[in-house]
């Protein structure tokens, strides 16, 4: 292995991590914005704006480190960004917020302590990259071009169009063919491994929740209809008013949000289970009665 390649390795490793983290956030930017909000530093539109700024920034730094575009500057900027992340995590932790950072979208969930440890490791890698980075090559054109292309495509266009793209099967655990024991629905009071069920993943605060429940009730009312069950991410008492207000004729089950998040980018989602195997998936609207029966 050449000496210059060896010197580039810390930067390439850190850059790859930032690219992966940026991509996973880019495919579900709303979740990243929600996670920023849970830190309690910024909220609402500011959190959304910050999410849409951090994503291209991470991708730019990641690409710059991988292709060695201004590697020292990129390593220093990455280190600074990591310090900001660590500060925010420590602040949130001190305020009793124990949700993970969302550093890798919703794919990886960790405690704040684990996040800080991980960021410290990345910071060390950034320092190594800063010290070991080779001198900048004479011609920068293609490297700059690569950085700009990645930022534009994955940092701007992808987050803006993420939910219109069919990426759910790629970034969630809900896929046709999956078995129920592979899904994080252990809290189900019903044995979903036998028979046919329409399973709804709901946002209890959605504006159209009443209409969704009405349609699910209709599915359940059809003769020989599949069983209907709904899950939401949250605490038990959150369903009290929801159930009174929408009058579901099926079980509505609370599960930890981090578990449910593995199954969706946007709610509501619906899927059919046949003897414990996911056979169909519907996004945003419940199946029509004839589809669900």
């Amino acid at each position, binding site marked *: 292995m050449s000496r210059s390649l060896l010197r580039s390795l810390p930067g390439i490793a850190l850059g790859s991590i930032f690219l992966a983290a940026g991509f996973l956030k880019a495919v579900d930017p709303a979740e990243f914005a929600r996670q920023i909000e849970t830190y309690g530093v910024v909220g609402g539109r500011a959190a959304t704006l910050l999410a849409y700024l951090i994503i291209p920034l991470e991708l730019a730094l990641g690409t710059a480190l991988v292709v060695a575009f201004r590697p020292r500057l990129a390593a220093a900027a990455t280190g600074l960004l990591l310090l900001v992340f660590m500060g925010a995590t420590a602040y949130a932790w001190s305020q009793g917020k124990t949700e993970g950072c969302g550093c890798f979208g919703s794919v990886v969930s960790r405690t704040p302590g684990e996040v800080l440890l991980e960021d410290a490791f990345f910071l060390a890698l950034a320092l190594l990259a800063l010290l070991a980075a080779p001198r900048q090559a004479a011609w920068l054109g293609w490297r700059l071009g690569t950085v700009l292309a990645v930022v534009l495509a994955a940092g701007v266009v992808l987050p803006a169009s993420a939910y219109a793209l069919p990426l759910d099967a790629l970034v969630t655990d809900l896929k046709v063919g999956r078995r129920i024991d592979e899904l994080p629905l252990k809290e189900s009071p019903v044995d979903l491994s036998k028979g046919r069920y329409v399973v709804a993943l709901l946002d209890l605060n959605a504006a159209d929740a009443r209409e969704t429940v009405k349609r699910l009730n209709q599915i359940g009312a059809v003769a020989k209809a599949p069983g209907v069950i709904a899950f939401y991410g949250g605490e038990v008492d959150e369903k009290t*008013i929801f159930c009174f207000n929408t009058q579901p004729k099926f079980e509505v089950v609370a599960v930890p949000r981090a578990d449910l998040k593995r199954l969706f980018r946007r709610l509501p989602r619906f899927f059919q289970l046949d003897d414990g195997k996911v056979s169909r998936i519907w996004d945003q609207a419940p199946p029509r009665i004839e589809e669900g029966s």
Partner: protein
Amino acid sequence: MRLTPLLLAAVLAAGLPALAAESASPSPGLVPFSPTSTYKVEVDGAEIRTAEMFLGDPGLLLLGCSLKFPVLVCPTDQTVRYIPQENVIRDNQGNVNMKGTPTDPISSYQTVGGQISFQAEGRKVKLSPKPALVGPQTLDQIIAHNPDYESRIKYYTPDETAVAFLSKYARKTEVQIYFGSWCSVCEAWVPRLVKSLQTAKNPALDMQFHALPKNFTSDATAKSKGVTGIPTIILVQDGREIGRLNGRPESGTMEEALAKLLQTSAP
């Protein structure tokens, strides 16, 4: 005789509208409501502890809310209506029945942030879920607070091998269950444990419930018992902890995990 079918048709034609009208009209009987303790009522920001709440098909009936008349909150059209006092009839089992029909809507209600709010007589009425249980509880108290526990217990089928072990376990053991009435994982797993121990029918295994608040990490009991996640099941024999289950089992059932813990932790 040829006229008979025509006559029959005429009789049916005359009779059907009357039958149809009868089936479409509201039942002349009483509409039953059962007591519920799931909600908390506030009027102008003050909790009304004397409020009585009853659930029935038409909605939630509120009595004793210091309003002029009993109030019916109707989810079908999201309205609030009065029921004349004389139309609310109590029976001797603690239920109430509604006679006749409620008034026209006096207002509509809004649901924001898991709460229902509406105006009545110029006052702001708010309905929200009851606060979480805290402290030692009986199973009845838990079920009264969270009726889903009852159905979860009823419909769970425990693992037979584990129950067989639990039913024969001889040492007197306190099964201390630290949980949150608000906690989704607890609502799933605690009833399964309860059903298993109820099925085992072993007086040596004594269930004790302790409800923790939402921010339980700073709760004194949780701290003193070293509870860092819920549900936590602590097994105590002769005043000494012999083992504990932290959270939901990684695999298998709660009763299997409990049986295994008793097997391995016995002195």
